[in-house]
């Protein structure tokens, strides 16, 4: 099957706009280079024609923007969602954060996204990036011949272990080539669990020491939707920009991971946007893995309205002490 093109998507959006079925289109807008794509709202076919882009760098999960737009805009909003994005969308519906009536959700078949940071790491002065069957040709100022980077090498972290999910909760689905599932997403979690406490401490110490406290990981997260985050509140005593020491900085990440546990769909946005490439998804995946083993497999966002294990009580639930026994038994 063919990869779906930007033309197909913008054509679909334009016809719904022109027919008055939707008033706005939430999609991706092209930038200065081939990789710097910005989430954007389009209001006309002309705007779409001019700026709409869909390629392997259209990574941004647009579902969180619907919280803001379904409140501030009157009229229906068409949103393009990749399979993994639909889980965030569904989770937001479960949490009553989006007015579903105002949304027209269109599923985009995804064939795996590229990590712009991985490409840029080894290429200075990029002038163009073109997609080929097997990967990307990266043209730079410093070499006449473009450098080739394979699709696998450039793949976005979250896509490395795409579970080949189907879209859910859509009004319409566009057909096209889809990505084949690959690695087990818990492999790295297991590797971390197998470390000694000291090794694990040093691993996180090294990763989190780069944190610049920008909170982009939280701001982009579809599970972080508090009206006022405690870490933004100057009266809370734990305001993030003012972390008194590196311990407080690390606490932020651990507390955030706790707070989204059971609601995190593993959409991968936190790690993708981190300016310091901190693998935050590993904290979340650890929780997901634990929830799966303690309470049975659970995928946040899989169905609308279900109660997550951590906010649901069942007489068969593990007691905290059993969790310890269980864990110690596992390690033995």
């Amino acid at each position: 099957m063919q990869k779906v093109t930007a033309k197909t998507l913008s054509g679909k959006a334009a016809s719904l706009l022109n027919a008055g079925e939707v008033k706005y289109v939430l999609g991706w807008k092209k930038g200065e280079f081939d990789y710097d794509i910005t989430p954007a709202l389009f209001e006309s076919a002309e705007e779409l024609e001019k700026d709409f882009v869909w390629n392997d760098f259209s990574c941004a999960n647009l579902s969180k923007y619907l919280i803001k737009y379904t409140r501030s805009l009157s009229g229906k909003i068409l949103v393009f969602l990749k399979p993994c994005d639909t889980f965030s969308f569904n989770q937001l519906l479960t949490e009553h954060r989006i007015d579903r009536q105002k949304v027209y959700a269109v599923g985009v078949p995804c064939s795996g996204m590229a990590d712009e940071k991985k490409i840029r790491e080894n290429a200075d002065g990029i002038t163009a990036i073109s997609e080929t069957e097997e990967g990307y040709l990266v043209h730079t100022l410093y070499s006449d011949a473009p450098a080739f980077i394979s699709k696998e090498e450039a793949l976005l972290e979250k896509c490395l272990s795409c579970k080949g999910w189907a879209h859910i909760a859509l009004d319409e689905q566009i057909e096209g080539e889809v990505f084949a599932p690959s690695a087990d997403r818990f492999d790295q979690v297991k590797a971390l669990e197998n470390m000694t406490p000291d090794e694990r401490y040093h691993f996180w110490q090294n990763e989190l020491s780069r944190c610049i406290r920008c909170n982009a990981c939280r701001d982009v997260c579809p599970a972080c939707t508090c009206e006022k985050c405690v870490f933004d509140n100057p009266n809370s005593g734990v305001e993030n920009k003012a972390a008194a020491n590196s311990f407080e900085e690390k606490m932020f990440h651990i507390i955030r991971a706790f707070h989204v546990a059971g609601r995190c769909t593993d959409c991968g946005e936190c790690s993708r946007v981190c300016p310091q490439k901190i693998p935050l998804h590993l904290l979340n995946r650890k929780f997901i893995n634990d929830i799966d083993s303690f309470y049975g497999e659970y995928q946040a966002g899989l169905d609308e309205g279900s109660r997550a294990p951590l906010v649901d009580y069942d007489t068969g639930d593990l007691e905290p002490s059993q969790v310890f026994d269980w864990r110690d038994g596992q390690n033995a």
Partner: protein
Amino acid sequence: MRKLSLENLNLAFASIAAKYPLYLPQDNSAGDAEYKKWEQGAKWSDKTNTVKSPKDFFFPQTEDLMAFQVSGKSIDIIDTRKESEDFVVFGVRACDVKSFEVLDNVFLTEPADSYYASRREHGIIVSVACTRPLETCFCKAFSIDPSEPAGDVSCYKTDDSLYLSANTEKGEALLAVISEYTEEADDAAVSKQKESINKIMDRLPLASLTPASFGGGKTKEFFDAPEWKSLSEACLGCGTCTFVCPTCQCYDIKDFKTGSGVIRYRCWDSCMYSEFTKMSAGQPRTSQLERFRQRFMHKLVYYPENNNGLFSCVGCGRCLSRCPIHMNIVKVMKALGGKKDE
């Protein structure tokens, strides 16, 4: 001009480090460069620029200003200052060197910030010319020449040598520390490198960008521009752009209770944050559009208005490279800059 064979680079670093704390860009495990203290075995990064700018050395992200110790009815003021040691920052790019001038105008204007002033006094800056400018670089738009980096010492790195020349007394003193490894050299290799840098600069994707339509006195022209809406729409308010920016200079000062006393500290703040400059009457900029506009108006209009036309962007490209949604000053300039006074 002095010439140092790259074979002796580590020996030279060791000599400097024996005398001063020496910081230089090194690759980290994430594949990016960051300023780290030099230790035996450290490798100078080949990357064009670091993720975080070197402004941290003069204006740290968090610093204690003073402490208060309470005992009974008396309060002692405790001096917590630590910025009295000379140090060397090596491998600073031309854009970042220029950023210090932007910060100086803010922190050294009377009443001068004595913390910043003493760090500036104690800091020795060794700059290096850029042989591989990135697609995100646009220093030239702000009349910065990456082939003529300023600083106390300017360097040029070729395949086998490092050429150094001192621009200040501090720089002379630093070169004296490594004189046993350097020799006099003509500037043929350096001239050649400058030429090739300039050729690359002309080919950069952002080579034609200019801030000409911005500057002091343009507040009215740009403040209510309709473009701010679409430009700021996707902004997360994360402040990554302000934290990686070498010229962003806003901070907050707070008192932190320690149990028996108080520590007064300051930390970077960001105009992109919802609580920025919150006063008793509330927050002056209640929408992300206003906060977003502030950052760019400050760099392109307000700052030049108060500083003889100097812009407070040096074109380092960090905000282009790190913004999670890829919105940045270049897109703002392009969207607004084409407009003419009617």
